[in-house]
Every structure is written in structure tokens, then in C-alpha cells.
């Protein structure tokens, strides 16, 4: 059995989540923004897996599975949007996307 409890993993996942949140706040590039969101989702997954091990329940793993699936769908749609926006404006800086009108 693993001698490390769940706490270090939770702390690590918090650190990673906050770094992802900072990335969302600080970076203006839409692709980097997306990557930061992925980092946040991934840190949440890490916490879920740590809790699943702590409680001896596989349900946490199943939830991580769903999160991964949703993340894949989200990335596919988001990147398609980014490609379209880039075609339209030659830029993916989200500060320049201040109007909805194409």
C-alpha cells in the first residue's frame, strides 16, 4: 500500500489549479487560455483520483473518465472556434475580440 496519504496530492492539485486559474487571468492568447483550462481540469482530476484511493471507491475514477471525455469535446469545439476567429481577424488575442459581430 502507498505510504503517502491523499493530502499531498490534494495540495499539489490545488497548486496546479491555481496556476491554471492564473494562466486564464494573465494570458491573452486564446490557445494558451485553453491550455490553462486544461491544466485546471487535470488538477481537478488529480484530486478526484486521490480521493478515490483514499475512500477505496472506483466511482472517482469513473468521474475522471467523464471529465476527460468532456474536456476532449470542449477542446475540439474550442479549437474549431479559434481557427474560425483567426481566419476572420488574423489574431487570437482575446482582448481584441470585444464584439460579437463577425
Amino acid at each position, binding site marked *: 500500500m*502507498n*505510504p*503517502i*496519504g*491523499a*493530502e*499531498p496530492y*490534494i*495540495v*499539489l492539485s*490545488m*497548486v*496546479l489549479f*491555481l*496556476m*491554471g486559474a*492564473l494562466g486564464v*487571468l*494573465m*494570458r*491573452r*492568447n486564446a*490557445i*494558451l487560455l*485553453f*491550455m490553462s483550462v*486544461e*491544466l485546471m481540469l*487535470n488538477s481537478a*482530476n*488529480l484530486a478526484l*483520483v*486521490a480521493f*478515490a*484511493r483514499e475512500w*477505496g471507491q*472506483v466511482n472517482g*475514477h*469513473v468521474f475522471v*473518465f*467523464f471529465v*476527460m471525455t468532456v*474536456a*476532449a*469535446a*470542449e*477542446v*475540439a*469545439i474550442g*479549437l*474549431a472556434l479559434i*481557427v*474560425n476567429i*483567426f*481566419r*476572420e481577424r488574423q*489574431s*487570437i*488575442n482575446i*482582448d481584441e475580440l470585444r464584439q460579437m459581430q463577425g
Partner: protein
Amino acid sequence: MEWLFLIVSFVAVLAAGMMLTRQNAVHSALFLIVNFGCVAFLYLMLDAPFLAMVQVTVYTGAIMVLFLFVIMLLGAEATTDTSGRMRWLGFAGTAVAIILLLIFAFPLASNMLSDERAEPPATSARLRVINAIPGGDNEPFTIEDMGQTVTMAGIVTGTVMLDSADDASADWRIDDVAYDYTRDAIANYAELPAGEYTAIAGVELAGFATSPMLSESLTLTTDSAHSAVFYENAEGVVAVALLEDDVRAPAVGKMRLSVFNAVTDRQVALVDVGQYTARRSLCEDDSCNSLIPHRVLIAHLPSGQQTSLELEEGSYNLAFVDQDQAILRTLADYEAERGVIETRVLVREPGVPGSQGSYRAAVFTAFAVPAFGSPESVGQVLFIDYVLPVMLVGMLLLVALIGVIVLARPDALAQAERRRINRRRRVNRPLVSVIAQQTGADVLSGEYMAKLPGGGDDKAAE
């Protein structure tokens, strides 16, 4: 183990930091891949090998390749971050993040360092009572109560009281009423917290409890399973046997068959009779006493003992025979399915002793407990408990796929292009000047031409 965790988590945080600060988007994506790889390694350390592999294939494989592909397709490597105007947000965000981290992580870290960590709640151990006393309304059986032998008749309950050694308040009672084993009764496992117990076993008949027949200490551990089997022993007196069931997954492609002999005064052997025709000729005439050549699977199982064997997947014709080579019970066309754990308790049914139908191999199935976090265990939960969400997520992926196709269809580009072209081609010359250009003669005289918008330029050009 600690140093491994520290190194991997350090690399993960470092990679995340590098991802946030790189100016080149490709470098950021590569550092994010490193971070995801570290997280996959942490999943391995957290007994989640299946998720670790999914993480590598889906995240670092599919999603990040998609990111890199889009970055390189757009040629957007240089991230044009706006500077100055929102710079304070970054500093404020960092400060808030550090404060949050201190607030939440500090209690966790202090808890981590102190010795009095909460014990992780153990997964439960399992115990079941199998009542194989030849029961029935009018079937007498004999028990020993207070040193005396008492013969009673009726439906009897086998009872196990578990007295927790650590905690006075935690007592458990598990019982099983034996009746009608012809319908393959299933005694379910009771889930109990792991720990040290004193097991006290006895039988009850219509509310009348006998004195304990067995009192022994029992250590229940997680992922272990026990059975308390009540049966008639060789002296014809009700006895109880406390057995540890082997619930580990059987070898690949095999099933595990455990046999408990609850038949009074008989040694039992389990034999593989062989082909169907052979078994037919064996038992359709009444001379079941002589056996054709066969394969002995279990030899000499005394009364009150349990043994187990692993069978290859397939179909068998099995027979229980006693020491006089008399067939007690046949299991025709017995299907051995892979991964199954089955307990067969050979009991004597009420009725005329000696005839073939008076013995019964009651089935008590047990499912193998797959290792925590293995693909097997995740798949079992995923496709049994969460079938509907799996379907919905599949639907979501389908919708996302269609959405991406709609967004990326060539029409989207064509519309933007057409708009640009239309803008360029806006007619700013009057029709008459076009006609004049094509026919080579002025339709209108110059003074009218000059009054028309844009007409003067064309005139001048000509």
C-alpha cells in the same frame, strides 16, 4: 515513495510554471505535455493504472496533438500578449492565489505532518452464512446443547454473532435460514468493517437459540471473504465451519470452483465424467455404481472440509462420487465461465437416502474482486452503474463532432471571402458609362455625365 512523489510533483509544478510564462505557444504546449505526463505518473502512484494510460493516450496523445496542430496550422507561435493595460490583474491574481493556497493548503499540510492522521476508512470485509443443515419442516436434526444431544425438527436458522474486539458497540449478526436448496439458494455476503472479531456461531429454531457451537477469534481484512457453513458432521450432529473464501480473481481464462462437503459420513470426490454419451450410458440405466474411466478433479474430500480447483473455460460433465464409487450428484453440461468464482456445497436433501436425487450441490456464487483501479474494476462500475451517463457522454461527443464539422466546413471560409470580394466589387460607376465603354459611343453627353456620381472620373480617363 515520498521522494518519488516530491520529484514528480516538483517537475509537474515547474512544467506548469514554464507553460504559463513561455512566449512561444509551441513551447507552452510541450511543457503542458510534460505536466500531463507527470500527472499520469501520479495516477500510477495512486493505484489508477487504467486512468494513467487513458491520461497518456487521450490528454498527452490526442488533445495536445490537436493543440500543437492548431498552433502550427495558424502560425500563431508568437503569442501576442497585450501588455500594460491589464498587468495589475496578473499581480492581483497571483496574490489572491497565494493567499488562497495558504488558507487551504496549510491545514492540509499541517495535518499531513502530524502523527494523528485520520485512518483511511477501510473497505469492507465480507462474511456470509451458508446453512447446509439438512432442513425442512419434518426433517429432524441433532444438535448439542449444554452438553446434551437434542433432536429437533423444523426450519433452522444459522447465526453468527460478531463481537468486535476493539469497539464494544460494534456487534454484528448475520444469519441464514436454510430452506429449499433445490432453488440454488444464494447466501449473500454481508459487508463489515475490517477488524478483529470474536465469532460466536449457533443455530436458532423458531426463536429458540442453542448455546454457542463455536466461539473463535476471527480477523477480517479488506478484500477477504469468509463463509460460516452449518452442516451435519460425521457424528450426525450440527457443526459449523468457518472458512476463508478465496475471492482473488482466478487465473486468466479459468474459473474457480470451491467444493464444501456438507454430507454426513461420506468422503466425496469430484470427477470429470467426460463425454455426454458416456455419461448418458452411465446413468440412464440404474447401475450408476460403476464408473467409466474418468478424470479425478478432487479426491477424498472429507465431511466438513472445503477445497477449490481452477477449471479451464469450457463445458464439463461433472459428478460427485462417494468413497464407494456411488454417484451422489451429477452436474451435466456444467459451463465453466472465465472469471467466475463459485462455491458448491454438497448437501443431503430430506428424502429417501441413497437415491441420486437426494443430494444437491447448492450453488453459492461469489464474484471475483478485481484489483482497485484496474481496467476491470473501472469497466465494471462504468458499464454497470453508469451506463446512462456513458451513453450521454457518447452523445455529447457525437454532437461535438458534428459541431466541429459545421464550424470548420468550407462554407464558413467561403462566406467570409465572398463578403470581402463583394465589398471590393461594389459598383461605383453609373451604368451609362459602362455601356459607353462597351459600345464605344457616348450615350449621354458630357455635361450630364459630369453630374452623375463617379461619372466624371471615367470621362476623364477616356
